[in-house]
């Protein structure tokens, strides 16, 4: 028994060496393990913003009364909105068609008496339109001297400045891990099948489980490495707070890795070529990401999508990692999600191990 374990360990060591070398032999591959995650994080950190901080708006003001000009000056004072004057609505509408302005303020010709103003937003971007209508409308009323009978003091917990970045950066860790690790392992297995080396592997004394472990180890290592890298940037560069422990994060990552690797192995168990693997990867990971609450809240989704979210490991990891970074809910809040990830990961790995031939 001991001797057999020893042999197994020797084989495993040889396999690990082979797999690591194979995966990281190509310098371009080494590059692709490190650089794209960084680029993705940086771009996401800066690009994924729903917040309207800068908007060009058109103004149609036939009379140009002193009051309308004063209003305009006051709503554009903080630099969020930049006003461009148009002679009439036709011109303004053309600018809107081209996408040159995102909203148009149309003062009534009789503004001094009827105090009417039209606020038109470009609905081709519905989120921005809602934000602009809300923000600009309020700024106008306020500038016109509205005294609100009820004031709302709002305070955002966990993210006082409502930085979109704080929401997206932890989420990136989840999507990155899913995409890179499941794809790497699926491709690594299918490549051996496509090139015929999988068959040769079968005639060696390597057991199925050893083969799988050999494949899993380097990819899991890359996954952990990427998470560490991305977390470091999140903390040091984007200064996202972290309210949990490194150990909790590591456990969560390992549990999640089991399901991402399981997903990749599952795909590799029923495809014949790398091309099919890539297509399947996309077909499966896209819904997993889109319906995980990564960019669009799960609670807004219809029931069927919410059921899917419940059996989607990404949803659970997404929740846990956001909670760890921003809220620090602790094990009481995380326990069910940890259990779900463990169960899903276990099922995925076992099913794919059984299917792999």
């Amino acid at each position, binding site marked *: 028994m001991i001797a057999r374990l020893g042999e197994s360990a020797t084989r495993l060591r040889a396999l690990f060496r082979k797999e690591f070398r194979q995966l990281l032999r190509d310098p371009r591959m080494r590059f692709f393990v490190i650089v*794209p995650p960084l680029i993705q994080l940086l771009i996401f950190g800066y690009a994924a913003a729903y917040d309207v901080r800068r908007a060009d708006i058109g103004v149609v003001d036939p009379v140009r009364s002193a009051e309308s000009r004063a209003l305009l000056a006051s709503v554009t004072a903080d630099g969020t909105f930049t006003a461009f004057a148009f002679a009439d609505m036709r011109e303004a509408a053309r600018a809107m*068609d081209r996408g040159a302005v995102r909203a148009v303020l149309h003062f009534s010709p009789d503004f001094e008496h009827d105090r009417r103003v039209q606020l*038109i937003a470009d609905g081709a971007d519905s989120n921005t339109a809602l934000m602009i209508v809300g923000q600009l409308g309020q700024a106008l009323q306020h500038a016109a001297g509205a005294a609100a009978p009820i004031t709302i003091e709002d305070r955002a917990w966990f993210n006082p400045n409502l930085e979109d970045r704080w929401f997206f950066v932890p989420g990136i860790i989840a999507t990155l891990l899913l995409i890179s690790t499941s794809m790497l392992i699926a491709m690594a297995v299918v490549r051996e099948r496509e090139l015929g080396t999988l068959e040769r592997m079968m005639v060696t004394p390597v057991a199925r489980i050893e083969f799988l472990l050999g494949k899993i180890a380097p990819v899991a290592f890359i996954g952990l490495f990427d998470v560490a890298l991305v977390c470091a940037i999140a903390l040091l560069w984007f200064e996202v707070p972290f309210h949990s422990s490194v150990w909790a994060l590591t456990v969560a990552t390992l549990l999640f890795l089991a399901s991402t690797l399981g997903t990749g192995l599952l795909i590799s168990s029923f495809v014949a070529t790398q091309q099919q693997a890539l297509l399947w990867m996309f077909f499966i990971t896209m819904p997993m990401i889109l319906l995980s609450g990564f960019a669009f809240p799960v609670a807004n989704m219809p029931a069927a999508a919410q059921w899917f979210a419940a059996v989607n490991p990404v949803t659970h990891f997404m929740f846990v990692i956001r909670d760890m970074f921003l809220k620090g*809910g602790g094990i009481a809040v995380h326990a069910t999600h940890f259990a779900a990830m463990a169960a899903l990961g276990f099922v995925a790995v076992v099913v794919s191990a059984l299917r792999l031939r």
Partner: protein
Amino acid sequence: MKLQRVRAIAVKETRHLLRDPGSLAMMLLMPVMLLFIFGYAIRLDVLEAPVGVFQEAPDAASSELAAHLDASRAFRVVARYDSRRALGEALQTGQIWAGFVIPHDFARELAGGSARIQLLLDGVDANTARLLRNYARAMITEYALRQGAAEPPLVIEERVWFNETRESRYAILPGVIALVMAVMGALMTSLTIAREMEFGNLVMLRTTPLSRAEFLCGKLAPYVVIGLLDVLVAAWLTTALFDVPLRGSLLALVGVSTLFLLVVLLQGALISMLAGNQMLASQMSMVSTFLPSFLLSGFVFAVQNMPRALEYLSYAVPARYYVTLCKAIFLKGVGPLLLWTEMAALCAVLVVLAVATFRRASRLGLLP
């Protein structure tokens, strides 16, 4: 360039495709799946968000305000708490997305003409928090008006053009078509040449009279057909199933889509040749097509909201122009001529990619 040779390559590539009906089906089903996800499952606006209320004094005025919040489309009061602490805990565990604290002197202050209430938001999802804040402000103003407060000084008539009902779906779905095209184009072609390189077929082609142009045209032709089928299916679903209006012409959409398709297919071919093996090509195509098309194209995140550096970077992302064109053709009903800058940019990208692909092909030893 001989048509006969182009056809031979195209026939060979088509056979490859037909031999694997599973993949072919997936290439045609991918747009359908994405449209269903974005059309049915995803919405950017907030409906019936779970909120909690803590009334410091449960008098008539504050109960009425709570009822008013509950009656709105935006909020659903899921729980009333008897302490600020309990409300805070519910916010911490995520049971509620926002909590209203109505102070004990609310009724008295409201009668006096200036009351305050407190709104605690779960800021983790910043966008949802901002939307909830805006809804809350609008609701409270409406409530105050109903209580007989003075009319606000301006009469603001709010309109949202091109999308009067403010359905986020309308704004998103035309962009999904662009996302689908960008992804499919790259997925379909990025591996096909890398595969031939891996198996050494490309070396054999050197011994044939086949030229670079013939090889590329033949190789990409079947994918142009599949891509256009995808566009048509997606456009049909978008309009027929999800009721998004197609205000512009279908011809303009097909024309613009063909142009964009050529861009992404060439991009895939170039990636394929640069990588030389499928593993690397798959990583490269994921990073260089899907992410930029999702993030830097204005598909969900408006380019104008980004820092300047990224805004400039987005000019290098072809999907950006296609998303703008798609949205304009669907929602605004304007032709590609009004958006000639976008069209010109797409043409420029196409030329650059074609030159780069050809140069790469000659370095691989294909005939001129």
